């Protein structure tokens, strides 16, 4: 199995007063598969943290734990210095953490504005009927302020393009007035122009300084464009934690390549000794 000594694994981050979120020694297994071994990270107020890692490195699992969708096997989390144990997605959201999932969590049969307000519906008083007019108006305003062009917001999202769907998922979360936003591959399925709009939006949110963002990205260039700091997950651990100003695409690439070579040599060595090590763990990919 991977020896922790070869990669510089940062220990639990030193408590800092401006950390809005601290994650300490989180581990998560799915049956025989270890998704996260021991992950610690921290997020400062107003910061945009880029999360990198190969497929199956555990990024999405980590996001799902922070967002309250799954529970960790061990480890602790702190929100504004207070212990943070989300019981559900709703609970996490109530505490100010909201998420755009990789699978977008959009409901094909529902309209754009119903999707944007799912679980945050505006209702009339005293009879709790849906206030569709207000939701339409607010959804339109939210999309306009983000600069995303959705011609009709009363059509079912099934009729929209992949990029438009992504934009709606992002807009939904941004519109939720959360303190911390988790974005799981927000630029997947997006055209260049739409992707640039989302990155612009992230930059604008950063300028305003009210929200802190953790963003999973695959494209290293986009990480350097959008993020203040980058964390690299490998085999369920944080393998690198540096401000983007102090690292480079080359360094990150080298870590990945080194890891790949090391893993291959290890496997080779194990095979030579006739010891069959179980293949390196890959958590199930949520489709």
């Amino acid at each position: 199995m991977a020896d922790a000594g070869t990669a510089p694994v940062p220990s639990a981050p030193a408590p800092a007063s401006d950390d809005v979120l601290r994650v300490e020694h989180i581990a998560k297994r799915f049956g025989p598969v270890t998704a996260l071994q021991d992950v610690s990270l921290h997020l400062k107020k107003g910061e945009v943290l880029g999360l990198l890692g190969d497929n199956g490195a555990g990024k999405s699992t980590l996001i799902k734990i922070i967002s309250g969708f799954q529970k960790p096997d061990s480890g602790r989390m702190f929100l504004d210095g207070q212990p943070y144990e989300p019981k559900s997605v709703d609970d996490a959201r109530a505490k100010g953490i909201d998420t755009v999932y990789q699978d977008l969590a959009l409901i094909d049969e529902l309209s754009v504005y119903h999707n944007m307000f799912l679980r945050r519906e505006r209702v009339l008083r005293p009879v709790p009927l849906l206030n569709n007019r207000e939701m339409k108006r607010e959804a339109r305003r939210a999309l306009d302020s983000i600069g995303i062009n959705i011609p009709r917001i009363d059509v079912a999202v099934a009729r929209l393009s992949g990029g438009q769907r992504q934009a709606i998922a992002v807009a939904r979360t941004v519109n939720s007035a959360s303190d911390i936003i988790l974005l799981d591959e927000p630029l997947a399925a997006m055209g260049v122009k739409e992707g640039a709009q989302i990155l612009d939006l992230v930059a604008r949110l950063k300028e305003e300084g009210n929200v802190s963002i953790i963003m999973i990205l695959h494209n290293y260039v986009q990480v350097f464009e959008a993020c203040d700091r980058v964390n690299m997950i490998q085999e369920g651990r944080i393998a690198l934690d540096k401000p983007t100003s102090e690292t480079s695409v080359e360094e990150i690439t080298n870590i990945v390549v080194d890891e790949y070579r090391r893993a291959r040599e290890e496997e080779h060595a194990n095979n030579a000794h006739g010891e069959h090590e179980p293949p390196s763990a890959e958590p199930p990919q949520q489709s």
Partner: protein
Amino acid sequence: MAGVAQESGRGPSPGQEGPAGLRRSLPTGRQVLQRLLSLREGSIIVVTIVAAVYFAINTSTFLTGANFKTLLPYFAPLAILGAGEVFVMILGEIDLSIGAMYMFAPIVFYKLDTAGLGLVPSVILALVVCTAVGAINGAFVSILGVSSFVTTLGMLFTFEGLSLIISHGTPVATPGAQVHQTTAQVHHIVNGHDIVLPEKINHIGTFAKIFGGGVYSELIWAVVIVILLQVVLTFTRWGLYTVAIGSNKIGAAEAGVKVRLVTIRNFVLCAVLAGLVGIFEAVRSQTIQPDPSGPNKILLLAIAAAVIGGTLLAGGSGTVVGALIGALFLGILEDGLILQGVNANYLLFYTGIAIVVAMTANVYVGRARRGHSSG
């Protein structure tokens, strides 16, 4: 398929501004039909009207008040059962146990009333039993992950069996549905002829009048329940979450929708409505028949009404009003065929063909409405 979507999608596509503008001033019959077909219940509305017109032309008695009254018991119970089934089917599940609730609730009602609880409390407690069964259905499906088909099939047999055990298979008179009779001159319409005969007529109590015994009692219940549930489905969070779960269960959960709660709630609704209809029918017919064949037929007809009304078995889409129209269609079909003098042996045959035709139309219309982007 993209071509189909473009043709019958709502609103003109931007590429056809000129000709569309000309045509809009003079809508053709085809356009009206397309507009209607783009409604979720569109195809069945058209089919139902066609069926009604056909029987109105071909029989002399179809368009009479008396026939409307004979039509009511065909479709009012189906409309209520279908309304409950729609809530389960939009989730992408199915509830077969409504047949058992339909049979079981009157027997519980009878047992409680003979134990001296009184009519209305007995009805309420019988529906509480249905609530429990619905909750068990929902819990098996949403918590244990057992398929709803299997769960509710098991419940169907279990509670039909329990009904037979408790009732010893013996029919009994429905409590509260007793009649006292007086003699009067009564008009009858027999084969279109108005005949006046001195006859004993039945007077029924207030309880019976409200709970299915009155001529329009079930119709009023059906219309009120359907309107109420359609409003719930379209204009409340409950309805929104039901559609959300049926369309994308994982996505709904990620968005924070309480999937188990909504699933259990919908199964409870379905079971309670089935129990209620069972009691209505027991009061209307004045006897409680512990025989599963009737409940099994009405269970399948209720699902047929929902499906004909445009509710997808796969979930994510459906309307309560559609189930009502589906029930009306089935009622008109059966009533009309009987009036036409069709051999009773052919009834099921024609009903079956009608269901297949209506379903095929729904698949076509459903594709056209959703457009090309969802497969």
